[in-house]
């Protein structure tokens, strides 16, 4: 009860620190999502409809990468962006950009692997029709992406969920620096370590509410678009 009351209080008092952290969480994960989607959908579609040697292995690898622990991704990105690492000269470590990179690495395999499955199913269904109608290449890809858009939305939401809920990678590459790289999950970890369990859980509730909101929005848009289609 304390938890819900505290969560409610944080939201209605428009707690400035909370909104800064919440906004950074959303910003980092959304940008990571946009980058991931632009990489995953073309890649997923390509892997779903093209036959080439090693394709099965690529898909296997992507599926395995879905289970990659965030802390390992964080360490890899840390070693890469560290001042003594190969990309250290960019000065990206302990910035929101580093967190975006880590999340892109984390969620791109997830969205790609799920998209492959979706497009592959559609491809089985459409292949013969497309063949007889002479639909190939770009037009076929466009048709798949449009027709699979609802299923793909779910793939994208899965990626977003993973990104915004993740703590292991962003705490390593972001450093959980106040007013710079502190996001919801790292703030929850920090409050837990301070023993402020009620506050930590309240922040968790706020994060859950955000996740609910995003999902409700997507479902709402989907319903609305579905209705318009048949109107």
């Amino acid at each position, binding site marked *: 009860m304390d938890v819900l009351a505290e969560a409610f209080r944080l939201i209605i008092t428009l707690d400035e620190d909370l909104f800064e952290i919440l906004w950074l969480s959303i910003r980092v994960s959304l*940008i990571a999502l*946009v*980058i991931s989607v*632009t990489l995953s959908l073309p890649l997923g579609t390509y892997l779903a409809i093209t036959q080439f040697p090693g394709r099965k292995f690529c898909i296997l690898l992507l599926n395995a990468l879905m289970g990659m622990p965030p802390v390992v991704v964080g360490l890899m990105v840390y070693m890469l962006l*560290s*001042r*003594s*690492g190969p990309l*250290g000269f*960019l*000065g*990206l*470590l*302990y*910035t*929101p*950009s580093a967190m*975006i*990179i880590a999340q892109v690495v984390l969620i791109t395999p997830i969205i790609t692997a799920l998209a492959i499955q979706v497009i592959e199913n559609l491809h089985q269904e459409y292949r013969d029709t497309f063949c007889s109608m002479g639909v190939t290449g770009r037009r076929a890809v466009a048709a798949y992406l449009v027709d699979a858009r609802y299923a793909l939305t779910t793939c994208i939401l899965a990626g977003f969920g993973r990104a915004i809920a993740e703590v292991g990678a962003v705490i390593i590459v972001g*450093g*959980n*620096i*106040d007013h*710079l790289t502190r996001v919801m999950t790292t703030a929850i970890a*920090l409050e*837990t*370590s*301070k*023993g*402020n*369990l009620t506050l930590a859980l309240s922040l968790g509730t706020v994060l859950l509410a955000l996740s609910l909101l995003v999902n409700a929005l997507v479902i709402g848009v989907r319903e609305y678009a579905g209705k318009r289609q048949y109107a």
Partner: protein
Amino acid sequence: MKHLIIIAALALSAHSLADSIIVQSTTSTKNSGLYDYLLPILTKATGVQVHVVAVGTGQAIKNAMRCDGDVLLVHAKSAEEKFVAAGFGEYRRDLMYNDFVIVGPQADPARVADASDAIDALRRITQAGAKFASRGDDSGTHKKERALWREAAINPDSGSGQWYLETGSGMGATLNTGVSLSAYVLTDRASWITFANKQDAVIVFEGDPTLFNQYGVIPVSADKCPNVNREATQAFTQWLLSASGQAAIGAYQVDGKQLFFPNAH
């Protein structure tokens, strides 16, 4: 598509942080709220923006050796001196101190409160078969604890996972574990005072001079790490060591208790 690329480019472009530095520091100083109190005063006085990364002392030192920080502010004197001797630090100065305490369940089944000194306290814990939660993370507190076990001629590793519980986590996480399991924990006093989930745990042992906890400050060497913001780093360090910096540290209180005692000379 073009927009996406522009957004991505903007997002990934390096932030220009002209007068900002990164301090690699410990969870104890961060969780105690010291930085939240001290840094605004420091920024006002010096114009330097400070970003604190709080990890265990061992990890902080390793991060600084990879040049991922401008200043080290930690508490493990011999490791700090090695860091400077290896050329990674410009110099090391004593900054402030507090002390370690042993916390445990109020009932105190191992009668640690009656111990004559810290070594005796550890002996009592093992003899009573009580649980002990250790940081297990090569932090300053962990190094101190290991040194105490060595002095007591006890090898806790033989009981690892049974009564000796190495959390491999920060001070707060270890305190959460210890409190929940009615285990004894060695912690710095600042972390304990500011820890909000004490439940029925209390300080059962304190006051042995060997539990002295010295914090040091080390500017990372600009020769080893050319990315170091030398000017801002100097301003930061000099202010902390100055009379006004020291006074500010001494003035910080939580629940009417002073957490850190300045002792730069």
